[in-house]
């Protein structure tokens, strides 16, 4: 997987995201600056409402910052048009969600193929890419199954295959084990670790599971109330 000239896959500079909630202004992310090196596995740790998912959405280009800059391979997402952001989501990042977010009426194969359709990849190339992705997550035998016919762990692996199929450089995972039992959760974490190692893929994972974060990630970034928690103070996070 490729990095950028300064070695950072993704970095933010004083990025903020505010929401108006009635008369009140909510600072979901407040002046956060982070830098993630290419090939690094970083866990964003924090309790609910700490702003970690909002920061992940900003890195994914699903949301725009109120202020500050977000660089993915030195391209500032804050200055991109919506078309360019779509291209970023399609080609640079892959996303995995807590709720899997597979389309229920599609088979596993069709779900995994969907990003290839959106990226206008040649039809002739698609089946090979799909097979490669599902083999990586050991689901080749379940291609024709619909999500409802898969277990939670299988669904998350399918979502992982879908995130990998366009060969992104950055994998963004939002609580990937949140809906899984501990054994299955560990399996998914091992899979992420393997992908990070074998593909040298940069991974930014949002979690509130400190133990798993410590076990699998290279580095933990802790957030509280939209701000970064200085290293050393992170022990306070549950």
């Amino acid at each position, binding site marked *: 997987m490729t990095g950028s000239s300064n070695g950072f896959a993704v970095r933010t500079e004083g990025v903020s995201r505010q929401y108006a909630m009635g008369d009140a202004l909510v600072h979901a992310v407040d002046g956060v600056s982070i830098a993630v090196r290419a090939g690094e596995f970083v866990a964003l740790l924090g309790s609910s409402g700490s702003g970690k998912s909002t920061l992940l959405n900003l890195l994914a280009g699903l*949301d725009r910052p109120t202020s500050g800059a977000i660089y993915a391979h030195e391209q500032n997402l804050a200055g991109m048009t919506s078309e360019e952001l779509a*291209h970023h989501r399609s080609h640079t990042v892959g996303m995995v969600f807590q709720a899997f977010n597979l389309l229920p009426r599609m088979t596993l194969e069709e779900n995994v193929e969907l990003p290839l359709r959106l990226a206008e990849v040649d039809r002739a190339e698609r089946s090979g890419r799909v097979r490669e992705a599902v083999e990586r997550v050991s689901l080749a035998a379940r291609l024709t199954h619909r999500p409802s016919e898969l277990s939670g762990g299988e669904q998350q692996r399918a979502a992982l295959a879908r995130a990998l199929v366009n060969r992104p450089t950055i994998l963004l995972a939002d609580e990937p084990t949140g809906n899984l039992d501990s054994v299955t959760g560990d399996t998914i974490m091992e899979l992420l670790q393997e992908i990070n190692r074998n593909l040298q893929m940069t991974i930014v994972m949002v979690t509130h599971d400190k133990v798993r974060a410590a076990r699998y990630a290279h580095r933990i970034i802790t957030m509280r109330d939209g701000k970064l928690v200085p290293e050393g103070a992170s022990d306070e996070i549950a």
Partner: protein
Amino acid sequence: MKLRDLTELAARNLREAVLRNSLTTLGIAVGVASLVAMLSLGVGLQELASTRLSRSGLFDAVFVTTQANMRAFGGPPRASADRVSSQPARKLDEEARRQLAEIKNVVEVYPEVRFPTEVQFEGKPYMTTVAGIPASARGDGAFDEMKGAFFSGPEANEAILQIEFARDLSKQTDSLIGKDLVLRYAEKQALPPDDSASGQSKANRSAANDSAISNTMISDVPAPGGFSLVPRELPLRIIGVVETEPATGFGGFGRGRLLIPLQIAQNLRIAQPTDMREMLRGNTGKPTYETLTVRVSSPKAVQGVEDTIKGMGFGTFSILDATKNMMLFFTVFDSLLLIFGSLALTVASLGIVNTLVMAILERRREIGILKALGAADRDVRRLFFVEAGAMGLLGGVLGVAMGWLIGRALTIGTNAYLKRQELPAIDISSIHWWMVALAIGVSFFVSLAAGMYPASRAARLNPVEALRYE
């Protein structure tokens, strides 16, 4: 996203909510069907009227008379009267007939021969109107669907009955063919000149008695000495029955109920109502015609020929003005039908808006997922557009089929009624390829327009909020 992928995804989405989408498509189909049915009805009626008038032989004919006669008859339609030439009035004599025949695009010039008289059939007398039909009338369409045959020759003692007169003679009109009837009429015979009358030359007398000329005259003006009427009978063989009434001349479109060859009719030297007037005026023995029918090579040439004839000092009348008014009527009629048909399609397009807005609500999360996976706003917009277009296209095709069925049902229903009334069957609806293309095209584009708002709303969805939607 490529069009093929968009189409596949749209088809999948449409199949997912098959009942709702089918009902929406059916709504469009009903709208298109009403549009097609109305349009086909308008065009069908227009074609029916045009065909009937064409078959009457009126479109390629100019009826010529003297300007004096035009006024005497109460005048022609105003438009024609206005165009009467300022040149001095001319007599409609043999010389005029020859000149008319020489005009460019004129195929034939023949006099009008129509007269009321009595017919004897199976011992019973019947009053009817006899009309002389030229041999050229065979090709003008009026006799296309006749029972029996057209006249075997210009001087054959044969008769073709108009269906209503045939019904007077027998309920089984087909059985009349091959039977004989007797035409009873009054023939003019010139009297020798009255010595007390102002001096008339022998030449005039001889002209009055010259059957070679006078036999071809309708207004066979007698010598100043007057004429007598002699009862005559002419046996005729019924050879056909015709439903459409052929045109037989100025002011009397289709009023001939017993049709005989024109040459035979001319040879009868029938006394005409105007004979008395001509005699009292003391006209010379030079015979004149009451009216002449000028048959033109095509309806397009009618106007030019009519203008030329007016320039020669005659009055004319053609069906052209009436046709123009008829076309104007049908244009307005078609427009009204189109408006009413479009109303149903407008209502159906609201159904599309409703269906797609519902789809956005249901597929909110899916739209969020698509965007997270790299779909641009444009892709989402196009996806909804394709869904709307597909419903419009399918509804359009279905609607055309339904519209055709409605048209057929109307025709069948109408013909069932006409049959009970013993009237001939007609086709009141007509669907052309342009109508099919128009209906499907309109349905498609109206559906796209209806999909505009939902598509743009779906494209603008915030992906983060959409992903949170349960």
